[in-house]
Each structure stands twice: as structure tokens, then as C-alpha cells.
């Protein structure tokens, strides 16, 4: 039984073609190119969107002149009582704040349930219009990081 390991090692591997560009190698090369390409692309996307994933209201206001028309994300909290949706309309008007600065914004369409929660941070994807209103195309609600149990009485 002791010679079995040596026998094992001496077995050659399945033979490969000796020329450099075998069909197998071309396939691997193509696979590697696609994979590395995808990684670089997503890495780039991650870094790019990470640095500007969203601005705060103050940061966006500071660079407002150059931001007209360009799609950006801005994050802030809903200013209490600023929300207004005209009767029968799908357009909503509201203001976001980062504590010191505020931003007037408009959104057309459905809003997530947590939009009106006082703990929610709201991220808008959109652009400035010449009137100075931020026209939102997508609303993303960043949920609160602290989980609180619902009071027993109201759970059901």
C-alpha cells in the first residue's frame, strides 16, 4: 500500500495540445477578457456612483448653477407639512432638508409607503429645472438603521 502515493504522483495529466492557441485556450482567454472587463466596469460604476451616489441638500445647493439638467441624487428628510398633492393629480410637491438647507422638489407618480415616515431619509434621482425646483424621476427611501419593536397593543 505504501507505493500507491508515488504511483499517484507519477500519473501524467490529461494531455494538452502543444501549440499555443488551442481551441481551449481561446475559450479561456475570451472568458478572462469578459470577466475582467465586467469586473473593471462594475468597479468603475461602484466607485463612480459611490463618490456621487447622493449629495446632501446643502452640497447640491452649493453647486446648483452647474447642475441644471444633469441627473443627480440628493438625500434629505421631508420637511414636515411641506407635502402637497393637488386634488386628483399625480404630481406631488414637497421640500427636503438636511437640517440647515432646504430644497423644493416635485415628483410625479407613486411614492413608497415609508416616504412619509419621520425617520426616513429620502433619496431623489432627478435634475434641476430652470424654475429652481428639483424634478425627481425616482424616489428611493433609505430606511432607518435602528429597528424598534412595534408596541404590543398596536401589533395585530
Amino acid at each position, binding site marked *: 500500500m505504501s507505493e500507491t502515493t508515488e504511483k499517484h504522483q507519477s500519473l501524467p495529466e490529461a494531455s494538452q495540445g502543444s501549440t499555443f492557441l488551442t481551441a481551449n485556450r481561446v475559450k*479561456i482567454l475570451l472568458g478572462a477578457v469578459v470577466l475582467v472587463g465586467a469586473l473593471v466596469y462594475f468597479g468603475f460604476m*461602484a466607485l463612480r456612483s459611490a463618490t456621487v*451616489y447622493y449629495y446632501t441638500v446643502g452640497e447640491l445647493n452649493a453647486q446648483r448653477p452647474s447642475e441644471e439638467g444633469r441627473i443627480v441624487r440628493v438625500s434629505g428628510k421631508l420637511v414636515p407639512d411641506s407635502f402637497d398633492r393637488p386634488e386628483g393629480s399625480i404630481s406631488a410637491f414637497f421640500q427636503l432638508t438636511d437640517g440647515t438647507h432646504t430644497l423644493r422638489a416635485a415628483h410625479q407618480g407613486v411614492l413608497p409607503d415609508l416616504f412619509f415616515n419621520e425617520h426616513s431619509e429620502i*433619496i431623489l434621482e432627478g435634475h434641476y429645472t430652470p424654475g429652481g425646483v428639483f424634478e425627481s424621476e425616482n424616489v428611493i427611501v433609505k430606511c432607518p438603521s435602528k429597528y424598534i*419593536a412595534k408596541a404590543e397593543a398596536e401589533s395585530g
Partner: protein
Amino acid sequence: MAETTYPTASQRPARRTGAIGMRDVFFVASAVLVALTLYLVFFWVPTEANLGVSQRIFYFHVPIAWLGMLSIIVVAVASAMNLITKRQKWDALAYASAELGAIFASLIIVTGAIWAKPVWGVWWTWDAKLTTTLILWFIYVGYLMLRAYGPKGSQGVRYASVLALIGAIDAPIIYLATNWWRTTHPDLNIGPLAESDLDSRMLLTFLISLITFTVMYVYLMMERYALRRQEDDLDELYRTAALRA
């Protein structure tokens, strides 16, 4: 036709039928813990005040994410051991973990999307945490494709090992993404770097779920590893037989 010279399969004793092994222990433990976790998540733990019932996905999503990150680290460590020692059992371990990791990485994205739609309002957004998780998924798929279509034998194993070693860097990046960049995810609320704290019942449910999923991972690893070893033995038999013919 000398039967005795086939090496690897005969070196390991066959599993005795009837004996209770570690695999059986982990199988039973997984089954019991999964039942317990399901009970805790759906009947015992309180509903979250702001997020409502959808927050219960948290008890699956985060343990699955933990395993997705753990798996690639296991693949990388086992690959490194295989490169150093040249022993095939390390490679079997790496391969088994890569297959499980691919499943968990897929489930991270699926459970995340199901949770994101009601809470964030979108299925997907290109923030740092989501993007680096997608990269992890591509690393697993790339690893498995490299193993399936790459060169046979030790050369293919080396290529895949390098991919795993580089790919494992992604795991801590995913975990720390919320600290490094602005993302849609909440700040870390579990682990040594967490700033916020959880309700005690939620924390207990989460920890039990984490243990459950980890035990299940170990059990699945045992099964897949044993199967992989048998596959390796079978390959060896075919190769030996082919050389004789």
C-alpha cells in the same frame, strides 16, 4: 486487470453503514434549528415599527449575506492551502465552498430585491454595497466557469485559485461599504463596528438565525466535500484506466 493498484479510493475507508457520523449530527442540528428559526421569525419576534412585516426578511437576508462572504474566504484559504501543499482535499474544499457561495450570492440579491421594493421603492440601485455584491456573484460564477471550461488538471485549479484569492478581497469591501461610502443600506447594526443597537428579541432571533444558517452551511459543505472527493476518485480511476488501455 489488477484491481488492487487503483490508489485513492482504496486509501480511505468506506463509510460504515449504521454508524452515526458528524454529517448525521449536523443534518439533524440543521433541521431542528431551521424549524426553530422559522418559528422565531414568523411567530415570536415583534414586528418592526417603521418597516413593518417586510423587516422579517432581515433574519434571512443578513445571515445569507454572511455566508456569501464567508464562502469566498473559505474558497480563498482552501485555494491557498492547495497551492502550498498540492493536496487535492484542499481543492475539493475550495470547490465545494464556491458552489455553495454561488447559491448564497444569488440569494443575497434575490432576498435583497424583494425587501428593497417595498421599503426603498426600487428593486435595485447602483450603490456601493449592491454593486460590490453583484461583483461577488460574478466572482463565484467566474470561478465555476473557469473550473468547468478551463484547462483540466492542476493548471485550471491554479487559475481558479488566483481568481479566488483576488476575489476574496471583495468580502470585506461589501461588509464595510456602508462605512466607506454613502449607500442606500442602513449603517451596520450588527457586529463589532455597529453603532446602533437592536431590540433584544430581534437580536436573539437574528443570532439564532445566523447560527442556523452557519450550521446548515457546514452540513452542506460536508455533503458536497464528500461528493467531490468521490468525483475526484472516479476521475482518477478513469485516468488510470485510460492509461492502461
